[in-house]
């Protein structure tokens, strides 16, 4: 090969290898509560929800000098349970954390994973993102009540689309709604799509009767008036979306997708306290507050043991729904 090619290849490699380290200070002089050389495992692909949460948090913590030399890496597979298996396997490692969320709770059941989230050391719940019940602007349904009546009369033809596979948040939400209005989950005609984006096309095109998904990807369409939101699933109404909550519409369900951080089992109490503290401090940084706003996330911080209780409850709730469907 000619010199030119070698130069091109070498330049590209250098750019890949050198640019990221140059942009993060490499000096090793932190003290006190600063955590060094932390590895953050992301159990889904780059660009996914857990990935964005992990990278945003790591960046905000580095900017605020809470963290030095954090490394975010991806280990995707089986709805996050491959990463979970790795985390549970690294017993006692206080320098590893995993970014995760509600999706992993369901994936443990659908993938028949040998490890459960309750095997880990919960560090903190970070954020929540409410789901919305949404229809196209020319849909016949204008209120949740109308939709529920039609749905109960004919669960087969009133199809519901969601952006996650069975066991994921967008699947659980309609099942919980169905249960609350007295419709057996097994009769629900749920059609999974590959993410909220693909679902969006089917809702806009009127292919599915209604969609249930995170509000994030839909804000622009809602603002443009091409989508109508019938209800939000969270406890309170959300800013910028003119729709009642499920409870205000007479459906007794409160549901939000959430994301948090867990660590391997058996880490020392000091390590655990240190990690919890880092995330506690993250809450106060302006960088994190700005990131929350930018991504449309709701702050839902819950430290270690509180997060554990929450996880146990979520685990039970998910298990009940999936058992009804024969998936757990």
């Amino acid at each position: 090969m000619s010199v030119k090619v070698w130069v091109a290849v070498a330049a590209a490699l250098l750019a890949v290898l050198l640019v990221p380290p140059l942009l993060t200070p490499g000096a090793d002089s932190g003290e006190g509560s600063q955590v060094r050389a932390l590895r953050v495992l992301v159990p889904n692909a780059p660009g996914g929800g857990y990935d964005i949460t992990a990278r945003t948090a790591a960046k905000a913590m580095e900017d605020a000098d809470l963290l030095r030399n954090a490394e975010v890496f991806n280990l995707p597979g089986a709805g996050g349970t491959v990463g979970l298996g790795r985390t549970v396997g690294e017993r006692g490692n206080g320098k590893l954390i995993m970014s995760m969320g509600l999706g992993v709770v369901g994936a443990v059941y659908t993938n028949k994973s040998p490890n459960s989230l309750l095997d880990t050391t919960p560090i903190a719940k970070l954020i929540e993102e409410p789901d919305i019940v949404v229809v196209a602007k020319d849909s016949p349904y204008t209120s949740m009540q109308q939709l529920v009546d039609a749905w109960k009369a004919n669960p087969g033809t009133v199809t519901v689309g969601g952006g996650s596979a069975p066991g994921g948040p967008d699947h659980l939400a309609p099942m919980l709604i169905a249960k609350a209005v007295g419709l057996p989950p097994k009769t629900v005609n749920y059609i999974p799509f590959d993410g909220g984006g693909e679902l969006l096309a089917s809702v806009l095109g009127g292919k599915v009767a209604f969609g249930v998904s995170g509000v994030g990807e839909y804000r622009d369409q809602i603002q443009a008036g091409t989508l109508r939101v019938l209800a939000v699933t969270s406890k309170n109404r959300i800013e910028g979306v003119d729709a009642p909550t499920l409870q205000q519409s007479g459906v007794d369900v409160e549901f939000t997708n959430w994301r948090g951080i867990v660590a391997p089992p058996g880490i020392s109490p000091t390590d655990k306290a240190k990690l919890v503290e880092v995330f506690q401090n993250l809450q106060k940084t302006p960088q994190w507050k700005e990131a929350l706003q930018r991504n449309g996330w709701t702050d839902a911080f819950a430290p270690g043991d509180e997060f554990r209780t929450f996880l146990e409850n979520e685990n039970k709730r998910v298990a009940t729904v999936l058992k009804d469907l024969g998936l757990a």
Partner: protein
Amino acid sequence: MEQLLDGFATALTPTHLLLAAIGVLLGTAIGVLPGIGPAMAVALLLPVTYGMEPTGAFIMFAGIYYGGMFGGSTTSILLNTPGESAAVVAAFEGNPMARKGRGAQALAAAAIGHFTGGIIGTILIVLLAPFVAKHAVDIGAPDLFAVMVLAFIAVTSVLGASRIRGFASLLIGLTLGLVGLDEMTGQQRLTFGSLHLADGIDIVVVAVALFAVGEALWVAAHLRRKPFEPIPVGRPWLSKADLKRTWKPWLRGPVIGFPFGAIPAGGAEIPTFLSYVTEKRLSKHKDEFGKGAIEGVAGPESTASASAAGTLVTMLTLGLPTTAVAAVMLAAFQQYGIQPGPLLFQRESGLVWALIASLFIGLTLLLVLNLPLAPLWAKLLRIPRPYLYAGILFFASVGAYAVNADIFDLLLMFVIGLLGFGMRRYGLPVLPAIIGVILGPAAEQQMRRSLQLSDGSLTGLVNSPMAVVVYVVIVVILFFPLIRRFLPSPTPPAAPPPEREKIDA
């Protein structure tokens, strides 16, 4: 038009030009390196670009996206190891060409194909964005399933000499495609309780294993018996005859690729395959297909880049990502507090037009970079065969491992590689298996989704005008030979044109 010129003015500033150049260089390098696709590259670069203003960052990302397409076909053609799914089809004809000493021509045909496809695709973005935004959402599961059926009919043309062996190979592919969690119900299929198989088997792993590993084993098994002869490296430039054969495929590519990129769940795999089959049908050199026909490289590569442009349309105008790269770029937009969607062209028109202008510039840079490189890359094949194949195996292993950093994928690749060796030994063509892995899961998903939408009624498969049109075309293609037999006088001139039109549609 004025906005586009403003866009060029923004994109041609030295900073942006430099960023575009970095983007295409990185993209090409990433495309050539196994295991890192453009999606991952953009995701990894996201944190680095936080500090930059959004226009510059997106100009760079767009460069990486198109650059990855250019680079991806390089390994596909030279080493028979596709780096990403869009480049799988390039190996079909590109690698036989490279082994005949026409590697440089294959690379040049691919590069010009990407350029033409990308440029036409980008022009179509400018002209058709509002139209596509309005109609892309009308295409639903029944329409997509009808197109899949058409693609399955088209598979018959790659079955090879023996139908039975061809179908056996197709079934192997379909079976591999079944592995994983059933997407509709969450039940496990052929996973044998392994979490690693729950997501199914990646098409890139299958393609690399069947093409590269299978062939390396085959060569290793025969190297001692055959006299050693290095792969010839012919003259580097496209001849007049080559150009005559390739200009039409280059122009036909976007017709197939652009719409597929724009529709939800379209992607680049199925259109590149359809383009390959179309070129095979239309070519005057049908006998050369499978042995290195240049049309089989030119068409699909142009299609791949045009589909990348189509993807950008739906992402920008609807906020709807149809491929992994688009999904990452969408996340990037959101990081900057910009929400792609119907209001984007009004709210951020400066950024959008600068981005579109930078696509033109990026493509030109890529062509300038890749054409002179083609003969240099082709010289790689002068490496003596044992070292070359060792290198290929090394690259394939790194690629399979890098996708998920999982040793299991490596094992899987070698097991499927052994299967590929066995298939070569018993004369089973490899191509139908690859097509089975691509088409099987997609067709299943669309069919079950259509039936679910209609609550189990079979009318759900034919309740849209487009689906009906496609089925009519299929019936015409299938029964045409029969009908022709009963026609009184031979009227062949009327036959081929409609058939070709329909395949393009």
